[in-house]
């Protein structure tokens, strides 16, 4: 098979060669060699020779003096740092190309339906022109943990607060000795049905006190009926001084919007929210003792968002930045394949009453398979070599949680590790990983020459 391809390939151009005069031919060859010489020299000296050198070097120890056989390769799977790198690179390869190809496909199909498709494609493709370094700085900014600085956490926090609400009194504490604090941060006291209780709080910042809050004294004086449990939650602090601890003094304000629960035998039997004067009321209780509880949700510290660049999320976060860069590429390539699809096949299916989803699933995707493969393979190769983005986005202390083969190879060889044997072995591993792509390329090229 090899022979036939080569013969066919040579037939064309060679026939176009110079007239078969022997001397002319030799001269022609000399000229041809002069044309290719610079390229071959550089490729030989700086690409082919280094590959061979690295393969050889990977069988020697750190200083390069002692032959160690496959030790460096065994070390790769023993050393926790390189193992981590192998694991992370695996995550990258499994997640990123599939995600990008899928996203690219969906967007390529959607964007065909709008009139400003070109503008959209340009916008999404533009990050391809941006360096990984600049993209890294862009996303270091966006992923900042402080919701006042990082745009992503600002968005997450505002969405969270919109749905879950913020706690009203993050700084409030129960008056010591009068209320018991549970381990989870909630406060409780005991009372029986028919009782009226007061729950004194301190430590509420003036800004946290709602505007509609009103004095609690009148409500505190109300008596509870049978089967009823009444009470007030109030700020046990008289502005300007005076007042007695644990007593509802005239100027002391109720704390509105506080959640209160009545518990019996560890089960919540009733719950209420305090009114503007801090009062609450449970009705229809059977006689007996209850625990009146202010759950910890009243005092929860404000939600701070997600620790994007912490050890747990750093790899997904960097993959997110990678999506920003490469989605446009996948979309444009798949879009080009899409516009080359036979229109009549799609039209015929539409005529037959197929809906958009069926057309997409049964016709578009199968016909696009070759393009999707090319996009996917390209992404796999590029994902394996990802370096700058990880190096820039992962903060120093998290660097080892985010490390991938390319960064690990760098660290081991040049960044302090100084073990060029292990470094070379990691380089060779990277090369081995792209060999399938190499075979794919050579095959594809040969097929295109038929």
């Amino acid at each position, binding site marked *: 098979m090899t022979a036939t391809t080569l013969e066919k390939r*040579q037939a064309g*151009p*060679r*026939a*176009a*060669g110079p007239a078969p005069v022997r001397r002319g031919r030799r001269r022609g060859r000399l*000229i*041809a*060699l002069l*044309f*290719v010489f610079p*390229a*071959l020299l550089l*490729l030989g000296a*700086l*690409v*082919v020779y*280094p*590959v061979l050198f690295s393969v050889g*070097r990977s069988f020697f120890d750190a200083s390069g003096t002692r032959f160690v056989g496959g030790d460096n390769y065994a070390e790769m799977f023993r050393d926790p740092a390189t193992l981590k790198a192998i694991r992370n690179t695996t995550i990258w390869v499994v997640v990123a190309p599939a995600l990008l190809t899928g996203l690219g496909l969906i*967007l390529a199909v959607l*964007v065909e339906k709008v009139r400003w498709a070109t503008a*959209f494609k340009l*916008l*999404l*493709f*533009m990050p391809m*022109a941006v*360096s990984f*370094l*600049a993209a890294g*700085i*862009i*996303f*270091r*900014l966006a992923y900042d943990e402080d919701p*006042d*600085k990082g745009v992503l956490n*600002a968005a997450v926090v505002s969405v969270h607060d919109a749905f879950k609400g913020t706690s009203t009194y993050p700084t409030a504490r129960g008056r010591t000795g009068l209320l018991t604090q549970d381990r989870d941060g909630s406060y409780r006291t005991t009372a029986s049905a028919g009782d009226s209780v007061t729950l004194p709080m301190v430590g509420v910042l003036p800004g946290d006190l709602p505007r509609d809050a009103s004095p609690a004294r009148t409500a505190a004086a109300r008596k509870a009926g049978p089967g009823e449990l009444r009470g007030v939650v109030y700020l046990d602090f008289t502005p300007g001084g005076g007042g007695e601890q644990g007593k509802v003094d005239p100027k002391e304000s109720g704390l509105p919007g506080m959640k209160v629960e009545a518990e019996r035998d560890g089960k919540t039997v009733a719950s209420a929210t305090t009114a503007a004067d801090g009062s609450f009321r449970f009705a229809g209780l059977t006689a007996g003792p209850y625990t009146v509880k202010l759950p910890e949700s009243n005092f929860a510290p404000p939600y701070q968002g997600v620790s994007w660049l912490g050890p747990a999320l750093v790899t997904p976060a960097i993959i997110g930045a990678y999506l920003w860069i490469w989605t446009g*590429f996948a979309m*444009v390539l798949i879009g*080009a394949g899409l516009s080359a699809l036979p229109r009549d096949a799609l039209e015929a299916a539409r005529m037959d009453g197929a809906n958009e989803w069926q057309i997409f699933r049964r016709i578009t995707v199968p016909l696009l398979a070759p393009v999707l493969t090319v996009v996917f393979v*390209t992404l796999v*190769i590029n994902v394996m070599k990802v370096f*700058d983005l990880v190096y*820039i986005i992962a903060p120093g202390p998290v660097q080892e949680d985010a490390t991938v083969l*390319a960064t690990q190879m*760098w660290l081991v*060889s040049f960044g302090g590790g100084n073990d*060029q044997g292990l470094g070379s072995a*990691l*380089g*060779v591993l*990277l090369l081995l990983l*792209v060999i399938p*792509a190499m075979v*794919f*390329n*050579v095959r594809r*090229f040969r097929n295109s020459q038929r």
Partner: protein
Amino acid sequence: MNALRRSLGNGLVQAVLVVIGLVWLTPLAGLFLSSLRSSQDNAKGGWWTALSGPGQLSFDNYSALLKNAGMTQAFWNTVLISVPATTLVVVIAALAGYAFAWLDFPLREPLFLLVVALLVVPVQIGLLPVAKLFGALGLFGTIPGVVLFHVAYGLPFAVFLLRNYFAEMPKEMLEAARMDGGSEWRIFTRLVLPVGRPAIASLAIFQFLWVWNDMLVALLFADSSSQPLTVQLQSQIRQFGSNIDVLAPGAFLSLIVPVVVFFAFQRHFVQGVMAGSVK
């Protein structure tokens, strides 16, 4: 009814795409606005506060950057690396591409298959051996060293692209030129290069952006006096947070050149990237 549903669906698609477009634009806008704010403002709150208080914005960070000798030097180094690395790749690959497409020499087929195979070789594997080689040749740490490395690792794609483009030229055209007694050199400069202009433009833009944006190669092969902008900025990333007034405008300066090139030559760039897929 059906038309109504279709137009509703289309409205939804438009809305989704607008949201995605905004999501794509936001990080870049964030960088740009951050680059226009003082370090105190950046420490106090996010760049979006500038949307309601545009008084925060000024070009002070940029003028400080232009007065920073290290930064301006790094900017010129980037130019001094990118331009020769692009020119050399184009010239060397055009010569080789023409020879692979139309000239006869021993081992032509296996050598070209080797070029195709080299397309995916990761630069990482070349770092250490070439560093040793350059050390022996006195090229380590110099701009020519960085340039040569980029040229070598840009060549497989460049030769592949140009060979394929040149091979599509009509045979008759070349034969006619040869009949007229034109030398190969003359045919190359007068016929092949002009005909191959679209492919050469795509290659040049692609290679230029590649080299301009590189950090890894320069990180190893450039010393402090020859380092490009990417490496200069990278060296300050450790203090991230306290130096946004330097990093943000620096990053913007480093990305504005390729983005302008991209918008000016988008068609060529997209073609180059598409041809380079599976690289």
